[in-house]
């Protein structure tokens, strides 16, 4: 082998080695790399018991209830399989609304309710004009319906 080819091989092996090491490390910390826990996992009891964590999902349509004269509110979050009630008292981001992606930080309280101390909104990767969104909405509803009704079953643990 020429010296140049040896160096090429050395560089290639070094990069491959680092990639494998990184892949294994990330695999080992996979759960910690997750920014939030899916609702289904929370309902199944798979969440950190001793510390606060984040849940992520969509705010269920018509589920927001506000307490008269206070900031207290309650809504349900879904991942299209399971639903979870969330209680919150505080400021909401502009994008927070029904049907919208949401990330809540907090802990499980009594009675299968998630007590949030911080609410963040998550938006999707689609950008469109309001008119386009309106005409698409009908279409999306048709696509979502089977997901919500006939989708995978929610297994609580």
């Amino acid at each position: 082998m020429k010296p140049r080819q040896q160096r090429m091989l050395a560089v290639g092996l070094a990069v491959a080695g680092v990639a494998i090491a990184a892949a294994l490390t990330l695999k080992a910390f996979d759960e910690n790399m997750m920014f939030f826990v899916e609702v289904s996992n929370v309902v199944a009891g798979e969440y950190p018991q001793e510390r606060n964590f984040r849940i992520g999902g969509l705010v269920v349509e018509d589920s927001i209830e506000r307490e008269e004269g206070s900031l207290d509110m309650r809504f349900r979050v879904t991942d299209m399989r399971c639903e979870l009630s969330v209680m919150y008292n505080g400021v909401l981001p502009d994008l927070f609304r029904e049907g919208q992606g949401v990330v809540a930080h907090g802990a499980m309280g009594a009675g299968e309710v998630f007590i949030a101390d911080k609410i963040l909104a998550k938006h999707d990767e689609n950008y469109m004009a309001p008119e386009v969104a309106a005409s698409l909405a009908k279409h999306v509803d048709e696509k979502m319906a089977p997901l919500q009704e006939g989708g995978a079953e929610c297994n609580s643990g």
Partner: protein
Amino acid sequence: MWKFFHQLASPPHFYRLAATLMPWLAVPALLLIAYGTYAGLFLASPDYQQGDAFRIIYVHVPSAYLSMMAYMFMAISGAIGLIWRLKLAHAVGAAAAPLGAAFTFLALVTGSIWGRPMWGTWWEWGDPRLTSELILLFLYFGYMALRSSIDDTAKADKACAVLALVGVVNVVVVHYSVEWWSSLHQGQTLMKKGGPGMDADMLYPLLAMILGFTFLFGALLARRIRTEVLYRERRTRWVREMILSPEGGR
């Protein structure tokens, strides 16, 4: 063909070529960015959810894209420098680092400013996309610090090339972080399956900005490469002759 590469690898030729290329990169860059900025700010319709706040995309996405592109550029230059013992390639890598750092900084700060009104937070520790992009900034800083801490240019070149190559794995993580793990950051818009998730009147200004920023990167890089080559070749005959010649070579 080989003659072309041979010439390209010759510092005096490269020094002059970079000067010639600069306007050819800068003019398209400015035209594309001017169109992209105007159309993005005033012609594109507001987003159905984010309203006008989504317009931050026109500086955020090109910066984020360049932050990764510049890193790959730097790492590939390092690999070429190591394998072919090409000093010029190391000079190119050295010139790309501060630019990459600048665009990474812009991607982080514009993302943060965008996150405040939309997500409800400036910054969230533990988010894979945000964290890996911050690590990218530190990799650039590490590269520049390593270079300035080693006086021997040849040694600094080698050490930096190795560091750049090791860090490539982080660029892969930045790119796929939103697919591999749950994140506050949304997924790919431009490279998603089934075509870009964006209306045409929003998309074209964004593509113009990305292309414009790429040309801009080339123009900014050309200037920095010239400085790097000039300094590294300061004791050579061609530099002496160029400086003493009546037309100079600034």
